[in-house]
């Protein structure tokens, strides 16, 4: 199975690898997946006072598609408001990266990571966590 050019680009030059201070109230951290399943994503957002995501970082253990999905997600998150970020759908990632069917779960994981990071941020700032649809993958 050949990878798409965009997957290769994100894998070779991943955007926004790194770690934000998870104890900061401005930072939301989402850690999803499991080592025994072969992919774990950690996605972090730093939200400014105006509710806009000013920084996003990730680290991923997984295949090229998982790395590319999380790299792309951090790119999309920057500059969005939290509400706009919530609207990101995994199928947009599938489309952008031209992921084959067996790799759709990578995009689902990236969407889960975004939502988990937002919820962490909400809870830290005294908001109710959002009810998340249970994703099946």
């Amino acid at each position, binding site marked *: 199975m050949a*990878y798409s050019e965009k997957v290769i680009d994100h894998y070779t030059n991943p955007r926004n690898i790194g770690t934000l201070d998870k104890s900061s109230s401005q930072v939301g951290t989402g850690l999803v997946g499991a080592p025994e399943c072969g992919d774990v994503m950690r996605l972090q957002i730093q939200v400014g006072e105006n509710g806009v995501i000013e920084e996003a970082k990730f680290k*991923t253990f*997984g295949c090229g598609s998982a790395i590319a999905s999380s790299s792309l997600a951090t790119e999309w998150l920057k500059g969005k408001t939290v509400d706009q970020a919530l609207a990101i759908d995994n199928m947009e990632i599938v489309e952008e990266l031209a992921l084959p069917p067996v790799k759709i779960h990578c995009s689902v994981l990236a969407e889960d990571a975004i939502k988990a990071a937002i919820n962490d941020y909400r809870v830290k700032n005294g908001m109710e966590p959002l009810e998340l649809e249970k994703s099946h993958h």
Partner: protein
Amino acid sequence: MIQLPIYLDNNSTTKCDPRVFEAMTPFFLEDFGNAASKSHAFGWKAEEAVDYAREQIAKVIGANSKEIIITSGATESNNLALKGVYEMYAAKGNHFITVSTEHKAVLDACKHLEKLGAEVSYLPVGEDGLVTVEQIKAAIKPNTVLVSVMYANNELGVIQPIREIAALCKEHGVLFHTDATQAVGKIPVDVIADQIDLLSFTAHKMYGPKGVGALYVRRKNPRVKVTAQIDGGGHERGMRSGTLNVPGIVGFGKACEIALQEMESEGARLRVLRDKLENALLQLEESYLNGHKEHRLPHTTNISFKYVEGEGLMMGIKDVAVSSGSACTSASLEPSYVLKNLGLDDELAHSSIRFGLGRFTTEEEIDFTIKCVSDAVNKLRDMSPLWEMFKEGIDLKSIEWSEH
């Protein structure tokens, strides 16, 4: 100058040796006869070539040419051995013994036989990948007909104690079959000294063509018979019908002849290169060798790079063709059952890479691979959240991971 990509997946298949290819070519355009045609020179020539090749094939395992049944490959040989013995010896019993790390061609043939009424014991292996004679002994019952244990494992390269197991089977009057696909042509295999009753092997793992293999079926002490699984013109003494693949058989014969001549020097050369690769990669922090270190093929190594996912790693070393125990591409998301059977965590199984060296592997290629793999592992660890946690001293087992 080294040519990229580098091929280090020789347990999967091997390049045809140019000498083999050359031996095969006349049998496509000139000597194209059917070896079963007895009435003209085309047929005689083909038959003669097959007879000669059969001698070469028999010799590499120390057998007589009359004991070689040509098949389409090791999968068919395994199926014929297991299903053929089950049918032929139904009156004697219905119990088979095999091992959980066998190739799917053996495991799935056994599953098929279970549906037909066979009773199959799948013995576990130790963390070194080996089964013991004691385990086999404990599993033998009065209705045991056949024990099937692979000679060398395809993922790990570990060599099972074949001679001891075969001797035990003889003692108990049980037939012994071995899937020797990975071993024949690489290490000395002798059906007489090893007391093997049935042995499967194939050409394309030993620099021969794809689509041709053989099943050795012992003719004396005891005389072993299998029920044909493919019926037709009664070829191969009735045990496997179908027009013989003459060019393939000629190539298989040549491949066996070369292997027999060069096995010793080639094995010694590859062992040095394999050890160089393995030692260098095991220098990387948190990398582990899978399988027994000593009882092993000289050209294979299987290493887990903890906190790095195998498929992601293979993408990072795209100039080196290898295979991984990670099954990220398969729908099941299940990593290698062989590695899981060693008792490895799924996580380590996902992080494993098999390197299979071969006749055409050079030292320059190994040096390139060491550099390439080391760089990729380091790069991927820098972006692995698990590596970061490990470095912070967090026990990954203490984290509640989300199921998916």
